[in-house]
């Protein structure tokens, strides 16, 4: 293995990010090794999507240093984007394009040779059972179909690093099982995957390592088993509740019901 292959594919060193003078990421540091499948967990507003967007070169950090695939960000953002696949949390697409047209656009922007591109599009759409709908406009797609298109677009150019922000959102059970298998297969093929999700049991099954972000800080980093052992909890969900202080949700639920009946 050459030294560059041993080097981490993602290096976050004391990264800071602010929205409107409010710091949402406080000196976050971690590394992802090549071939790892890492889960990124955290409550709403914890900074998960911001972390992923910074990694994808979409947002520029306010401080700290970042290297993705060995390239510094945000200086080499265009080159980094060429090497990564990103599935955003919301399925924002050009609704008037067809599924085929959207994937062609994405592949061509990533410089995929035309024959290879058409072959990959056909193969991925077939696997996702979207081949019959490929000439329909995206505004006629269901939420799950749109999510599949986003996942397909992220894989077309054979990226080294895949960033998945809530990839199972809107997918039916079969598609979700298929994506989990796909993640395992991609990982076996040497791809690095950062998987952000609220579905903790999926993260527990798919990811070898888990990062938990809470209020902009990295509060846990390790395998699901090691986190369970260190917090003396039996499930990842309990670990999450313990670390993020979300065990006390029941009074809030009672308040909602009381307000509805008042």
């Amino acid at each position: 293995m050459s030294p560059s292959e041993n080097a981490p594919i993602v290096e976050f060193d004391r990264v800071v990010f602010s929205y409107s003078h409010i710091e949402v990421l406080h000196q976050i540091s971690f590394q992802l090794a090549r071939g790892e499948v890492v889960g990124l967990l955290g409550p709403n507003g914890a900074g998960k999507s911001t972390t992923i967007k910074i990694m994808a070169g979409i947002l520029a950090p306010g401080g700290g240093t970042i290297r993705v695939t060995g390239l510094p960000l945000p200086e080499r953002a265009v080159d980094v984007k060429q090497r990564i696949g990103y599935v955003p949390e919301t399925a924002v697409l050009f609704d008037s394009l067809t599924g085929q047209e959207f994937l062609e656009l994405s592949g061509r922007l990533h410089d995929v040779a035309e024959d290879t591109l058409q072959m990959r599009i056909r193969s991925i759409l077939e696997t996702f059972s979207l081949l019959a709908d490929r000439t329909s406009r995206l505004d006629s797609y269901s939420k799950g179909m749109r999510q599949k298109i986003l996942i397909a677009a992220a894989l077309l150019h054979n990226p080294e690093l895949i960033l998945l922000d809530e990839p199972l959102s809107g997918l039916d059970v079969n598609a979700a099982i298929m994506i989990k298998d796909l993640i395992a297969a991609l990982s076996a093929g040497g791809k690095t995957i950062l998987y952000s999700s609220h579905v903790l049991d999926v993260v527990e099954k798919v990811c070898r390592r888990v990062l938990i972000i809470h209020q902009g800080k990295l509060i846990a980093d390790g395998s699901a088993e090691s986190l369970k052992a260190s917090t003396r909890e039996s499930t990842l969900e309990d670990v999450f509740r313990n670390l993020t202080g979300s065990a006390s949700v029941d009074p809030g639920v009672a308040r909602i019901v009381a307000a509805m009946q008042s």
Partner: protein
Amino acid sequence: MNRLGEAAGRLLRGPWACRLLQRLGIEPRRFWLLTDLFGQLAERREMTSHLGHNTAALRLNAWILCGMTGLAAVLMLLAQIALAKYFAIFLAMTGVMLAGILFSETGNSLVNPVEGLVLAHQPIDGATYTAAKLTHLARILLYLVPALDGIPAICGLLLGAPWYYPLLHLAAAFLLGCVIALFCCAVFGWLIRFIPARRLKAAGQIAEIVPWTLFLAFQYTRGLFQHIHPSHWLPTGIAALAGLGLAAAGVSVGAVVMGLRCLSGDYLVRISAIVHGSSGAKAGVRRSRTSDLVAWCFGGPPSRAGFEFVSRMTRRDWQFRRQLIPMLPATVMLLVGSAHELRTSPFSGRFTGAQVAPHFFGGILFLICPLLVYGSDYQGAWLFLLAPGRALGPFARGIFAWLWLRIIVMPHVVLLGGAAWFWGMRDAALFTLYSVAVASFYLGLELRLIDGVPFSKPPEPTRQNYLLPFVFLGGGVMAVAVGVQYFFLFHSRPAVLLAALAVGAAACLVTRASLDTFESAIRFNLGLMSAEAKVLYREVEG
């Protein structure tokens, strides 16, 4: 014609054009991919808010401008003005018109990059992306410059110009258009570089007002320039003057180049922050006494909903504010310019600006009502599909209440205070009563122009153009009404009182009928919206 277009296309995508693009730091393959994408989106009506991508709107604009400048050229020919003056007037007219349109379009493209969220994670560099985004400015120039200067350039021959004058005139106009387009891009480049993303939309809107404000301010300050004689401040020697000119040109070119570099360097990294940027301002949760009153008078919680909804959205909706911006400087200048007219009572027997006031409010409402249905957050309109049918009537009355209270009643309260000071309480009260009645009558009629739920449709650049003939027609009707008032009404206070009562009663009847029409329009448009349920309810179907 098609063959000519194809040949031009081949030339533009040929090797020499690619080399030129590469020299400018633009990646040709991705540039053409994005340009084709934007064209395709516009063709499929997904990107219609950009004038340069909307061929129908461009053609309509071009025909209207062509008619206006053609008429102006004929008038100048009849007046037999000197050729140099003729050329300068049309060039200035082109500059003012293009500055207004291009500032607005550049702002809309760069400050509201809706497509940016889909493309932000693609490997596209800033220069390529901004160049592709701003290509539609070139289309605007290609349509509007010949429209503005085509007829005047040809008519110049009738003023004794040499045979090559039309070519010279058009070349100068195109050059001016390109300089203005580059200047607009540079201004927004500087703004994007130095203004925080959360304030960018507001800053962009202020920048859009600047050309109109300068133009109108110049109308009021021409006399000042004649007294100050700025030419006296300049050095007299040719060499010094040339040096000063070169330095000024150098600074201008430098500022434009730096602005463009800011745009190509920073833009793509800032897109996500720009799209998601909010002012960060927090609104209070206090309960408004006015909305309590509206709920009590106009039909309970749904009317309060209509009142509060329009009240908040008119202040916060970016596209709505953007549509009103070109009208704002003219309105403010008109109000400031006619403030001194308040000293003279409309009952003095003389014609005063105050006599125009009720029709002025009618005019303002005429501009606002048709624009009310368009907004940035139109996709949130699905909420109204869930409202019970019986709530739509009071909801429409709540919207009427906002228009009546905020645009008619509140300004008249201020007017009453000022007028009472100069004319005495009796005349001020009588005039205010009359003015409120007339403005309410206008509102009653103009409610019919609100074609659906407010802020429920994406903006359409052609909409204002379709209204243009009605603006001229309405202006004529209002001028006749002002004349009738002056000659037959304002000489007798009892006549004004009677007229106020009669117009007020008519306003009530008209408003009642128009509210029914408005409610039907809301129902009809909600029906259309639910017919497109596959778009709105794709999650449910999935």
